[in-house]
């Protein structure tokens, strides 16, 4: 239903990217209608270069012509702009913890697992050791909570989409067993809650296509 003050929300993204997917998930959780543009990173659009001249990357959210880049920053913007189904608590300490875990996922945990999945024979052992250490950190943090955010899905759960979904695909392709029920039962249980959440389920990219995409990259 169009109104005179129709809000325009656009997402420039990459369907296979967990960072881009974070934004899809947040917008869907809030029920915000948006237009999605798939970027071809080998041939970046004029819009991409205009809206993110600093990094020239996706995702970029454009709200009424105003661009925001960097997925965690976009997530906080979305949470502050559309206040239903909040992703962050109102309590400053809980917010600080959520920011800490999201940042730790990005700075330390995701890269350790990614590196392990793409490691060559020479670096494999060390990379796998670091990936397992990273997962242990998460295992210790999730404890017996349903989600990282508690009873409801929040910022950290969305930021951990790579752990909930991408890791299984990448480790299978790499022939590794990093995140398993035996090794990390709590993170494993969380991942099942995550991917079975009704909105998340619809918002994640199709498994087969994601598998094929990364398998093709692995063969190059």
């Amino acid at each position, binding site marked *: 239903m169009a109104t005179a003050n129709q809000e325009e929300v656009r997402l420039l993204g990459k369907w296979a990217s967990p960072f881009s997917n974070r934004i899809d998930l947040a917008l869907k959780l809030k029920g915000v209608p948006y237009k999605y543009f798939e970027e071809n990173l080998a041939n970046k659009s004029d819009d991409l270069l205009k809206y993110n001249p*600093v990094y020239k990357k996706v995702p970029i959210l454009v*709200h009424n012509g*105003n661009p*925001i*880049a*960097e997925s965690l*920053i*976009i997530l*906080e*913007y979305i949470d*502050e*702009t559309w206040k239903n189904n909040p992703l962050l608590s109102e309590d*400053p*300490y809980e*917010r*600080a913890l959520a*920011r*800490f875990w999201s*940042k*730790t996922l990005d700075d*330390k945990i995701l890269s350790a697992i990614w590196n392990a999945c793409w490691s060559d024979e020479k670096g494999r052992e060390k990379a796998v050791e670091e990936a397992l250490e990273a997962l242990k*950190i998460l295992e210790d943090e999730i404890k017996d909570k349903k989600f990282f955010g508690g009873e409801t899905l929040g910022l950290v759960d969305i930021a951990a989409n790579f752990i909930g979904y991408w890791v299984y695909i990448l480790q299978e392709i790499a022939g590794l067993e990093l995140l398993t029920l035996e090794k990390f039962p709590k993170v494993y249980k969380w991942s099942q809650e995550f991917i079975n959440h009704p909105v998340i389920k619809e918002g994640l990219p199709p498994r087969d296509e994601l598998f094929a995409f990364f398998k093709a990259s692995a063969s190059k």
Partner: protein
Amino acid sequence: MADEVILLDYWASPFGMRVRIALAEKGIKHEYKEEDLRNKSPLLLQMNPVHKKIPVLIHNGKSICESLIAVQYIDEVWNEKSPLLPSDPYQRSQARFWADYVDKKIYEVGKNLWTKKGEEQEAAKKEFVEAHKLLEQELGDKTYFGGDKIGFVDVALIPFYTWFKGYETFGNINVEKECPKFIAWAKRCMQVESISKSVPDQDKVYGFMVEIRKKFGLE
């Protein structure tokens, strides 16, 4: 019951300086604990088990780690005066973006400038100038990144200015010549009391950098 605020820090750390500035700006009474980074205290290891790094803000026994997260926490809890982040969500997102840029870029280009040699150092010089020119562009005609008063980005960025004597000496670069607007902004910041009383002077940091270079054979 009075608030108990403790800051675990290291005097030369630009990240620690950010939290010091925020605490000073808000007038928050706190205890400063200097850490020996070669012999980290049990308190530090307990309060930041994941990264084992400073700064760590401890508020009534609860720890907040990562400097920009601690600064935002301070801004949200002590919200009656001197707001560091704007109230508009879009302006906030831009402030966060540029503070994050400082984290991703400025620390790295500075570090490379004074620790690398030869071609790598030449490349580092170029990147250093480019990054600071970009920041000049973002500052524009504003007095501070925060506008008329210092804000989140100013707090995130100004600590690195205390390392400039070393950058310029070892990096063989004249920052004022390359980025005059940046230096003008930095000098304005150093006139702000909460900043000047929270950061060490450039000579002291320079001495520290000389020691590090000796220790790691970087000369």
